[in-house]
């Protein structure tokens, strides 16, 4: 059987691609105008921000850790990047006065703050061995708290330099594909290469499967986890910068619940919290499944209030179906 049998990860990814194809077929059959090419492009690209978060969250899940702080980090970097480059000249409105830094510096500083949140996560989780769910829920509140304090519970969107809206507004001429989507695509490819072809990528799996064994065989588990947490926060920071640029505003309530969506697409893609199992490609498939399901539901005129319930049911079905498929395969 050497070489002939594919890994369980590829099996689950293929399985979920099959599910995706079936779901897509059903949606095309029952939802009007679902098969149009523009809709397909939308399905692939609409969720770019969740997919960017999903990359970091997937790798952390593979090591057996959660990162619930990503949504808060998006809000924080968005608000901070606005605040840093708003005009420093005095104005009546406190929300219109910023630090007046050049845009480049503002972005760099905001990303540094995002990485700071990642570093706090890493310190508590990798060094003090605090469960990741508790500490990242705490840093979620801290990051969103910073956003709320700086934006005074509202949003900052005035006296911005013209350059602020460029990044989020750029698009490939003639197509509706935005720069942000390109960034997402590049990052997905990079993450895929990292996962399959680099030593560090394979070590991630080892840590997830058995972190004691990983440490004993010479992997610096602490440093590895630290970099993963910082990368996850950095990705969230980049997402926050792009989103705030797209909306030309930094809102303190932006990205509520995104951490859950990122977790859901990873789970749909077959990542297991038991550790050492999952793939970025699977996560991407999971993201498309989620957008097929939600947009089919919207197409069937279900109210948007259905989305929470729908996401919950789909996730449970996916987890159980994947386990069932894996059990069948073993038996």
């Amino acid at each position: 059987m050497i070489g002939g049998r594919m890994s369980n990860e590829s099996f689950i990814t293929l399985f979920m691609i099959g599910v995706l194809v079936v779901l897509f077929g059903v949606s095309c059959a029952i939802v009007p105008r679902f098969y149009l090419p523009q809709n397909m492009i939308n399905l692939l690209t609409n969720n770019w921000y969740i997919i960017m978060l999903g990359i970091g969250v997937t790798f952390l899940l593979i090591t057996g850790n959660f990162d619930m702080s990503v949504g808060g980090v998006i809000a924080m970097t968005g608000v901070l990047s606005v605040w840093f480059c708003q005009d420093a000249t005095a104005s009546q409105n406190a929300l219109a006065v910023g630090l007046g830094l050049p845009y480049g510096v503002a972005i760099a500083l905001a990303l540094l703050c995002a990485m700071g949140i990642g570093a706090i996560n890493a310190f508590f989780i990798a060094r003090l061995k605090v469960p990741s769910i508790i500490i990242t829920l705490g840093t979620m509140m801290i990051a969103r708290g910073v956003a709320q304090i700086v934006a005074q519970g509202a949003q900052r969107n005035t006296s911005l330099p013209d350059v602020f809206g460029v990044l989020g507004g750029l698009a490939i001429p003639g197509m509706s594909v935005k720069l942000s989507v390109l960034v997402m695509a590049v990052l997905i490819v990079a993450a895929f290469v990292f996962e399959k072809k680099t030593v560090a990528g394979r070590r991630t799996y080892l840590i997830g499967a058995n972190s004691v064994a990983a440490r004993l065989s010479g992997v610096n588990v602490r440093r590895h986890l630290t970099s993963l947490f910082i990368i996850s926060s950095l990705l969230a920071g980049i997402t926050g910068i792009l989103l705030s640029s797209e909306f030309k505003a930094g809102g303190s309530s932006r990205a509520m619940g995104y951490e859950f969506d990122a977790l859901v697409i990873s789970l749909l893609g077959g990542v297991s919290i038991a550790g050492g199992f999952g793939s970025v490609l699977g996560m991407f498939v999971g993201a498309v499944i989620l957008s097929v399901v939600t947009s089919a539901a919207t197409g069937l005129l279900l109210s948007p209030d259905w989305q929470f319930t729908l996401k919950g049911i789909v996730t449970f079905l996916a987890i159980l179906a994947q386990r069932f498929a894996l059990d069948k395969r073993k038996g």
Partner: protein
Amino acid sequence: MKIGREETLRLRNERSNTMRSNIKKFYIYVVLVLIVLVFSLVKLGQVEMFGRGHFLSPDSLINLLRAAVPILTLSGAFTLLMISGYIDLSVGSAMSLSAVVFALMILNGFPFILALPITLVLGVAFGFLNGLLVMKLRITPVIATLVTLNLFKGIALLIVPHGLSAIKGSAALPMPAWINDYARTEVVLGLPWAFFVAVLIIAVLIIIQKRTILGKYAAAIGGNRTAAELSGINAVKWVWLLYIIVGLFAACAGMARASYMSLGDPLSGDGMELDCIIAVLLGGTAFSGGEGSVAKTIIGALIIMCVTTGLMTVIPAFWQVMAKGSVLIAAVVLNHLLVREKVKA
């Protein structure tokens, strides 16, 4: 000579150990007193001690205790679950959903005697579902309850009619005034029924933890599940029961919240899971389970309520999230310093 030195070392070690265990035993009371002290001194220039507007004025204390009813109702059971090494992140949403359903029933003319058991049965169903997913289908507790968090929240949002933010009375269909009777109307000492129910629940849970088999089994399962199962404890059954108890009290807390606000808000329980976690950690329950105390969690819950109510008088509302996040991190650090060290020694 050498033995003497070892003897002194041992004595010194012992002394520092007893000191540490004393700190561990009593620090939470000191923290509570300190926080109350800070908030009672902070505006002393403007209002006199125990006067109107002071943190320790009777009105303010009654308000604080009334607002604390949901967390007091819930956090005791939450502690037992965390002692057994499991977690339920869906408590906040379970609370919101019960509040919405309870308010909907009252609005449509159900008598209290009918609405109460239905809400409680609903809570049991929430707990049963969580237990089923975690214990029977063996989905990781955090993931399973995160998903049910969104599921319950989604259902609560679906129940509320489109265009409204909550289940509330209107001109055509007013909310009966007696909805306040449970958690707002004064009974004794200015406090409502719900507060005394919460106290009763706490007392029962403390007895359960100290005197019954459920408390001992929870600690045994949290300490080492495999060992507990090998010695004949049916972990699936007992933890499932704990999930059901948590669900039941979440519904109870939701009912109190709905009665207090006289409406069913589908987001009213948001963040309750974090408040419970903070209370439990402040109370010195170990992250990994195995040890902890319901009574101390209650003190932790009072600390959170003091901090949130006290801060509201001092800083603008948009600092609240930051404050709560910092309290959570501080609780983690305190817990780490006091619980972890002892395990190592």
